[in-house]
């Protein structure tokens, strides 16, 4: 298998229509997130692997039920009668809902990644991603600092701006080395949950060239959202196509 594309979107409950009240509070973020997912899909993927930080590791397949009742969304379930203790974690459920809304119905697997995982361990997870499919897209869920303003969930952190600027630069450049150097403690202090998914991406795509593009990067309600895609470089893509004939 080969990773041909990736999308990065926030795992923010407020991006789920209905869960955020009568009116979408950040429609531009949701639009950019769905656009990033669409670009990932349009790269010709035949499987999507969804990656998000969690309290503990977990692996779920396409049939895993999901629900958003734990954050108050009583009527948001993938199917009636879902068994609660088998539900996807909240960030993965948000990923599932956005994939659905982007029109994706293909094979999907969901990886919950322990948020304290080291960079090396995350890269190892990336190298070990297994699938029977030929062309895979990664959906990375997470945000930058959640400490951008005084009213932010984590209140203001003086290093928030620097953290976000670095994050945007490494994602725009597809700089996997920089992703691997994202600090565990620093990300935790910023209430950022994107470190481990980015490092899994770095491990999974090592040795290949990716081109990054960002469709949204700004803070909303004190949380820095980035919507972006990473697409396999055209030359690498031709090599991949030739090898899979």
């Amino acid at each position, binding site marked *: 298998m080969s990773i041909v594309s990736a999308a990065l979107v926030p795992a923010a*409950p407020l991006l789920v229509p209905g869960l955020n009240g009568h009116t979408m509070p950040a429609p531009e973020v949701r639009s950019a997130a769905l656009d990033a997912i669409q670009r990932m899909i349009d790269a010709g993927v035949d499987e999507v692997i969804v990656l998000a930080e969690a309290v503990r590791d977990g692996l779920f397949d396409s049939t895993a039920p999901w629900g958003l009742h734990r954050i108050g969304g009583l009527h948001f379930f993938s199917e009636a009668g879902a068994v609660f203790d088998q539900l996807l974690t909240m960030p993965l459920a948000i990923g599932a809902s956005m994939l659905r809304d982007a029109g994706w119905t293909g094979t999907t697997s969901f990886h919950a990644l322990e948020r304290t995982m080291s960079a090396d361990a995350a890269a190892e997870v990336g190298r070990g991603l297994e699938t029977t499919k030929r062309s895979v897209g990664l959906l990375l869920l997470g945000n930058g600092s959640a400490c951008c303003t005084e009213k932010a969930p984590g209140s203001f952190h003086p290093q928030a701006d620097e953290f976000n600027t670095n994050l945007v630069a490494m994602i725009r450049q597809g700089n996997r080395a920089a992703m691997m150097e994202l600090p565990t403690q620093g990300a935790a202090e910023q209430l950022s949950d994107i470190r481990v998914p980015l490092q899994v991406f770095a491990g999974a795509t090592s040795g290949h060239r990716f081109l990054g593009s960002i469709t949204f990067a700004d803070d909303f309600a004190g949380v820095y959202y980035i919507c972006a895609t990473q697409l396999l470089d055209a030359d690498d893509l031709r090599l991949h196509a030739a090898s899979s004939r």
Partner: protein
Amino acid sequence: MTLQLGRGSFSDTDLLVMAIVNRTPDSFFDKGASWADDAAMDRVHAVIAEGADIIDIGGVKAGPGEYVSPEEEARRTVPFIAAVRAAYPDIVISVDTWRHEVGRAACEAGADVLNDAWGGVDPKLAEVAAEFSAGIVCTHTGGAEPRTRPHRVAYDDVMQDILTRTTALADRACSLGVPREGIVIDPGHDFGKNTWHSLEATRRISDMVLTGWPVLISTSNKDFIGETLDRPVDQRLLGSLASVAVTAHAGARIFRVHAVAETREVLDMVASILGTRAPARAVRGLA
């Protein structure tokens, strides 16, 4: 259950108004209106005249902000508690604190109730309540640290979590020797909760009432009301009063509020609807 909050004894049908008096320069609603000693005492005079049963004095804003040491918190609250006690020997005084050092000093100055709004984060606070035979408010925060905001918090069943945690705190206080009739539970609106969670806690408040512990409601001007009605902090009175009416009708006993006169009137109406208070005047059709 009959309430005994320090020197204050209340019957089963009393609906009590707990008036907020902030000794802070930066609280979310009044933004320092009672920071100065004179202003604070003026507010005490006013809220007692408006029908407050309990004066709740706090020295640290609930939200994130500048660090306030226990010494500074005590400096803000304890002398003022002593002054209120001197002025009103019979009024029930509560201190809003999570710190046992502050709670102890407050009780020594005359406080009757320890309003533990951060839900047992300092386990010694309940020991202080027992030592002084003070009342204690056992609040649900979902395990949140003091002065933090919720960030994507999740509960399998928010009311079940509220019940489990608050009754555990109440049982522990009781086992430590806090008078049973002085223990109160509080669902902790907005604390460790998003708006959906706080609405559900309000909707299911009767589950808390059914535990037998008296229930305190602290919804006044909070963000879940602002988000629900899309109102800024200075336009949440009607939403606050609606939450008071609904929870009072469901059996809650104490209402911690900024707007005392309005809340008193709502509670009087609810009490009359419940049949526990006669109308002020009943002439219609009776002449």
